[in-house]
């Protein structure tokens, strides 16, 4: 049984045909360069995704009431690397559970080495207030 994938490494978008030869070996055809084989292996054997989301910001009550116009309500965050696709939901839940006090600097590690994956979650902007 063969599977089909479109390689997204570059804009050419090669249509790959993949046959499984055992549990962790693939036979890839339709690729115009070696990157197609690498992509098929990653995508079928251990698909990963970069995760970007926003986290709750903790402000003192009087600040949040004073002048909320133009105030950034959520802190954008991102993973420092690609995370296993199947369990992205777990990482999102951990991000949504965060409460980040301001000020916070861009690059601050908010979640370190999530579930031993080697992936951190960092603040992707600076919020001074």
């Amino acid at each position, binding site marked *: 049984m063969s599977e089909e994938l*479109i390689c*997204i490494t*570059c*804009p*050419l*978008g090669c249509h790959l045909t993949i046959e499984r030869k055992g549990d962790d070996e693939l036979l890839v055809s339709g690729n115009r360069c070696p990157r197609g084989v690498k992509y098929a292996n990653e995508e079928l054997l251990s698909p990963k*995704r*970069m995760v*970007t*989301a*926003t986290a709750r910001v903790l402000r003192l009550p009087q600040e949040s009431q004073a002048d909320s116009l*133009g105030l*950034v*309500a*959520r802190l*954008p*965050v*991102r993973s420092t690397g690609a995370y296993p*696709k199947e369990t*992205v939901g777990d990482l*999102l839940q951990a991000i949504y559970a965060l409460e980040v006090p301001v000020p916070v600097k*861009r690059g601050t590690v908010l979640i370190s080495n999530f579930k031993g994956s080697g992936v951190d979650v960092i603040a*992707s*902007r*600076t919020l001074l207030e």
Partner: protein
Amino acid sequence: MKDLFFDAVVIGGGAAGMAAALELDAAGLSCAVIEREEQLGGILTQCIHNGFGLIEFNEELSGPEFAERIEEKLQGTNIRSFTSTTVMELDAGSENKVLFCYSALWGVLRLSCNAIVLAMGCRERNRGNIRIPGDRPAGVYTAGLAQRLVNIEGYVPGKDIVIIGSGDIGLIMARRMSWVGCKVHAVVEILPYPSGLTRNIVQCLNDFDIPLYLSHLTTNIIGRDRVEGVEITPLENGALMSDKAFTIPCDTILLSVGLVPENELSRMAGVELNPMTNGPLVDSMLMTNVPGIFACGNVLHVHDLVDYVVEESRRAGKYAAQWLKGRRPVREVRVKAGANVRYLAPVRVDVQADNKLYMRTLIVKNDAVLEVRVNNRVVKSIRKNHIQPSEMIQLQLSPKDLESVLSAPDPVVEVSIN
């Protein structure tokens, strides 16, 4: 009213405006950036997804990170930035150019200057622009507005979502809405192929099993107070198959149907626009038909990467600085969009300078050839592995490439793709 003078004023404090201002400052000129939002950074601050900066910083960054990296370069310069400030009037007719601005922070400002860089970016097309029939209930948003609500203001605009148009912003919002717990029921595209990148089709739609309806038209929006559903009709050979129409129940519709450069101020100043791009027609120094008014970034033409916006805007800033110091193009010729080329920017090249052009094609093709002709004789030919309308193409033209222009009577430079 405050009355201030600068050598140059940059309108817009996004990636384009900041990049242009940095070059003006580096050339030793006094420069102001006017930004209507409370902070610099422009649209990047709401684009929290990654994929920015691969060319500029050789790193994959999120939008806010990219914006902050550029903004940090403004620290320690003499660039004056006026945030929360809107330019209301632009008068290029008098000896100096004059801008009237209103600001919550500064009151009314009257800024005089010798050069202006237009860097206002673009706007989303909305329901009116594409004339979707039906009711007018709450719950119809442009994708970018929804992006702002979710990513900056912290509001989720609905639960059950249908996205109209398969542009990249719509695709990215499909993933974003799915990740905040909404159900995205469909993406509807009138064309037979998606307008967004394959990468985004895979990672933003396929990952979430979101169906993509190609060659389908939105024929009705249903709902009294709030959106209740959207009627979709298939197109076959350009004809509506009304008997095959179906309705998808939803409470929210996001529109991702294209961007238009925001040129109200340009028009006010008498700047001539290119009907193909809706942006100004510019010469080899990225200057509009109004002497001393330059344009760059998405207000000139809609770019697909912010890295390209920054590259172009840096040149605009440099050119504006050179123009203020007296440089003029030596000999310019018009560049014509030939076969399969939708547009070129700029539309003029200087025969005695290194020129860089951005262009878009009308076709999807592998192994294409880009040709530059002077009076029908090929002077440059470049092979392209793959071209498609959604990906901008870059072209360099040196004095050597354009040598034959000098001896040609009525030279015409034409760029085509086959």
